[in-house]
């Protein structure tokens, strides 16, 4: 941000800083308004799934796999269920369902956090998984490609899968390395 302001100042375009700051603030509010709707929808559905024991059931099946990535989370803690839901939604490419579920998972992980202002290793791992966004079906991009007149809009699914897989493995390795280095 400072670099942007200085750069604009040096190039005699300082007025764009004001304009862009104000319009960005406005678009943040619009983004949040959109987010409120999907947050309510998905967390509402999650609550039903939680109370009916659905999440406990799904977690029971998937915990052995996911538990390996999150050794610090107790197996029967609600955080485990929320993490599993986030990763599943991510893989199915359910764009706007991922954010509410991910936030929910972060909040559950926060209850395990001894230092409330500092990220725990489990939080960093979840974030790493979400930022690489391992997706089986990139629906938005397929739509974009067919809109641009592609002969075969789905052909990038294969390359996306390989790239996501590579990046996810890489990120998990880096995450482990950082975890070891930062542990002091």
């Amino acid at each position, binding site marked *: *941000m400072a670099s*942007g*302001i200085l*750069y*604009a100042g040096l190039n005699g*375009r300082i007025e764009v*800083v004001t*304009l*862009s700051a104000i319009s*960005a603030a406005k*678009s*943040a*509010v619009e983004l*949040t308004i959109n*987010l*409120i709707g999907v*947050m309510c*929808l998905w*967390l*509402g*559905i999650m*609550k*039903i*799934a939680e109370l*009916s024991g659905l999440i406990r059931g799904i977690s029971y099946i998937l915990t052995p796999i996911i538990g390996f990535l999150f050794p610090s989370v107790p197996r029967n803690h609600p955080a485990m269920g929320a993490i599993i839901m986030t990763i599943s939604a991510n893989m*199915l490419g*359910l764009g706007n369902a991922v954010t*509410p579920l991910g*936030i929910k998972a*972060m909040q559950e992980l926060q209850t395990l956090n001894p230092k409330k*202002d500092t*990220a725990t290793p489990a*939080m*960093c791992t979840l*974030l*790493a998984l979400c*930022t*690489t*966004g391992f997706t089986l*079906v*990139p629906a*938005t*991009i397929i739509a974009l*490609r067919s809109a*641009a*007149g592609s002969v*075969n*809009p789905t*052909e*990038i*699914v294969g*390359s*996306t899968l390989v*790239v*996501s897989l*590579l*990046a996810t493995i890489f990120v998990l390795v*880096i*995450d482990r390395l*950082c975890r070891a280095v930062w542990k002091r």
Partner: protein
Amino acid sequence: MLLELCEQLSVWAIPGVLLIVPVIGYLRKVKVYEAFIEGAGEGFHTAIRILPCLVAMLIAISIFRASGAMEACVAWMGPVLNVLGVPSDLVPLAIMRPLSGSGSLGLATELLNTYGPDSLIGRIASTVLASTDTTFYVLTVYFGAVGLSNPRYAVLVGVSGDVVSFLASVYICQLLFAH
């Protein structure tokens, strides 16, 4: 075949979940409506709590872009990426991808329209867009929601993931679609 199955799965996933979860809840004698309202209320409060963090991040990124600092960054990084085999037209997308979801979608649309979606550049742009998420948005929203101020090494991990996805997209597409 497998591809079609995946696509159908993706189309049906949300309606399926919206149908199955309440039905199971009802069968398990959960007060479905009350439970939904309770969860939705939590969602509302969380969304409001994220707003200040989102405002701060979007302002920072927007100034970075509008001031021309980003273009300077592109110009500076371009030669380095060129050495690594990245076509220069893709450099802005590489920088934009982790910063702004709508920004990178816009850039990719432009690339698809200029070069055609079935060109190598079009395919790489599609893969870049599909294989990573907007790192800084995810970071702000997830950590903002629980009030974390010290992300420790999460930024480093996220950004290194973006670099690897981008380079992998370039190489894998060249391998797969070279003919």
